């Protein structure tokens, strides 16, 4: 059986959404990693046949609804990251720990940059460097994937 049935995927996405919906405020908000995108990236690399660009788009729309922000901005950011993850999916499963962490970090940053561009077009003020803190905390959270049994390659011998 392939890893990642629908229950696992959508269950974990729901869990990520719940974490995202926790009443974060103040410092917590600036550090909050993008749980939903992390879960999405994990499944995109682990089970690309079950979790694809469409799922990423749907989760982005849900986040936009929850945020009350402009419809489609998170969706756009997520599908760009999802597309890049799928492009390199076969290679990522062969990456070592450092390469994998770097790859995922780049994807998180790219998603944030897409979001930032949309926001700047919408007339928002440019944010400071703290805007990218969620990507840092996100990649720290990704270490959980690297150093535990839920590896993206589905192979416990490789890193």
């Amino acid at each position, binding site marked *: *059986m*392939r*890893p990642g049935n629908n229950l696992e995927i959508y269950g974990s996405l729901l869990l990520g*959404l*719940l*974490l*995202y*919906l*926790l*009443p*974060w*405020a*103040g410092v917590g*908000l*600036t550090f909050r990693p993008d749980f939903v995108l992390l879960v999405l990236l994990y499944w995109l690399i682990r089970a*690309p*046949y079950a979790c*694809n*660009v*469409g799922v990423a*788009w749907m989760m*982005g*729309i*849900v986040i936009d*609804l*929850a*945020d*009350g*922000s*402009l*419809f*489609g*901005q998170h*969706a*756009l950011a997520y*599908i*760009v990251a*999802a*597309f890049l993850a*799928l*492009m390199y999916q076969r290679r990522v499963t062969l990456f070592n720990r450092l390469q994998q962490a770097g790859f995922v970090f780049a994807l998180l940053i790219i998603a944030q940059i897409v979001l930032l561009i*949309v*926001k700047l077009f*919408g*007339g*928002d*003020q440019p*944010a400071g460097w703290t*805007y990218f803190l969620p990507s840092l905390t996100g990649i720290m959270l990704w270490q959980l994937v690297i150093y535990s049994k839920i590896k993206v*390659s*589905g*192979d*416990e*011998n490789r890193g």
Partner: protein
Amino acid sequence: MIRRVTLQQQQPPAFFVRGPSPFARLVFFSALSIVLMAVDSRLHYLNEVRQGFATLLYPLEVVASAPVRIYRHVNSYFVDQKSLAQENQRLTTFAMNQALDLQRLTNTEAENAHLRLLFEARQKLKPSTQLAEILHTGRDPFVHKVEVNIGTQQGVAPGQAVVDGFGVIGQVTRAYPFTSEVTLITDKSLVIPVQIARNGLRAIAFGHGRDSTLYVPYLPTSVDIKEGDKLMTSGIDNTYPEGLTVALVTRIERDPNSPFAHIICTPAAGTDRRRQVLIITGSLITPPSPISKKVSHAPRQ
């Protein structure tokens, strides 16, 4: 070893079951996102759709905020002696400061008379208010919004003013069935007509969008305004009742090259200080405008 075998077994089908290529999907969904963004920002067709789906998300939000609610509840039971002593000391200091303020009462009597006039004017309007509790502050650091726990079921409608004990907080911008979204006066999309309490000068304050401040554009450099001046609502917009504190002037820059003074204010009300806010749900009784009913939009920069 078993895992390795399953990996080899699972690989071949993955080549066949992929459907449209990721690139095709990317193009399709980006087009969809961009269309959605354009429709949402320019045409405002999606408000009903958004309301419907937000109601579906409401149970999830309740579940998500449950741990924090439980934590607060439990925490209030376990107050230790040290924190009580600290609070006692803080309150004693507070009481002493208040005693000092009482002695200064005579000096502020003139101001008080003026305030009483404003208060009476406000009493005449008798706006009905509803107590709301802030569920969470906005999740987007770019937007200055909070979500409160009452909605259209309790009579909240978009456009209603939101205040607390210190002054104006903002305005309801979206009302869902059980929650509503309040845009703070510091948000860059919110404009509020104000009056300087000291001399009655009318002006318009814009949210700055950053640093939780407001700014007052379009006032000449020679304008009679000082740091520490209090800005109050003028009540000429039929939205905010008259005489509520909005902000205090904190910085004035008079640049000789610019025809306008650069005035920065900090809001008097604070959403970080209180969890409860008042929503003014009753309509304000004002005589109809003799010229026209049309609302003219305030000019933006």
